């Protein structure tokens, strides 16, 4: 497994862990108002901490691989996965806004669903990278 595939696994797991917790504090579950913003901030910080620690461990364990620059296959995988994720984000954002306005009429809920759409798009992004690395591009 390449260094970049390992990095993609770490990011994917970190996003899944953090945003699964965030999803549990969504509208209807969480106390409305500031709490959701705090939950979002806490999730963001937790994600950064998990990423930083895991990346540091990976870099210390595989220093040679970490120094290797991206080659043309890495760049192609980046482009393809990002393209899929970008489309996914646009579609999910519109859906999120439509669903949130239709169901809740609450601005905070709109924000909550848009963040979830972003997290889902990132899961698609890193999931696609892993699939491209494993199955070929």
């Amino acid at each position, binding site marked *: 497994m390449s260094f970049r595939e390992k990095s993609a696994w770490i990011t994917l797991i970190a996003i899944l862990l953090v945003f699964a917790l965030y999803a549990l504090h969504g509208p209807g579950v969480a106390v409305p108002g500031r709490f959701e913003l705090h939950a979002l901030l806490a999730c963001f910080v937790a994600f950064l901490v998990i990423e930083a620690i895991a990346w540091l461990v990976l870099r210390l364990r595989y220093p040679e691989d970490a120094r*290797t620059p991206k080659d*043309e*296959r*890495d760049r192609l995988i980046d482009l393809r996965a990002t393209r899929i994720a970008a489309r996914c984000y646009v579609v999910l954002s519109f859906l999120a806004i439509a669903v949130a306005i239709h169901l809740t009429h609450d601005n905070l809920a709109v924000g909550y669903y848009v963040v979830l759409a972003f997290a889902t798009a990132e899961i698609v992004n890193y999931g696609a990278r892993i699939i*491209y*690395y494993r199955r*070929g*591009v």
Partner: protein
Amino acid sequence: MSGTIVSNRIRQLRFEKGEITQQALGERIGVTRQTVNAIELGKYSPSLEVAFRIAEVFGVPLEQVFQYNPVRSPSKRPS
């Protein structure tokens, strides 16, 4: 996504030309060991530039390294 219509003899040539490792070949053509492995397994078709570099390392014409197999219909859409 999986498999390409371009096959190659890189693995065979590596052993014929002094048992070059994937790592060593990757360093000489400017890609990672994993990318050399993906090319050998037909999971990735390299750019023309990398293909020519591979042929140059082995000292053979490009068509002795890569073969185009039009029998297999391409499942990939152009990007």
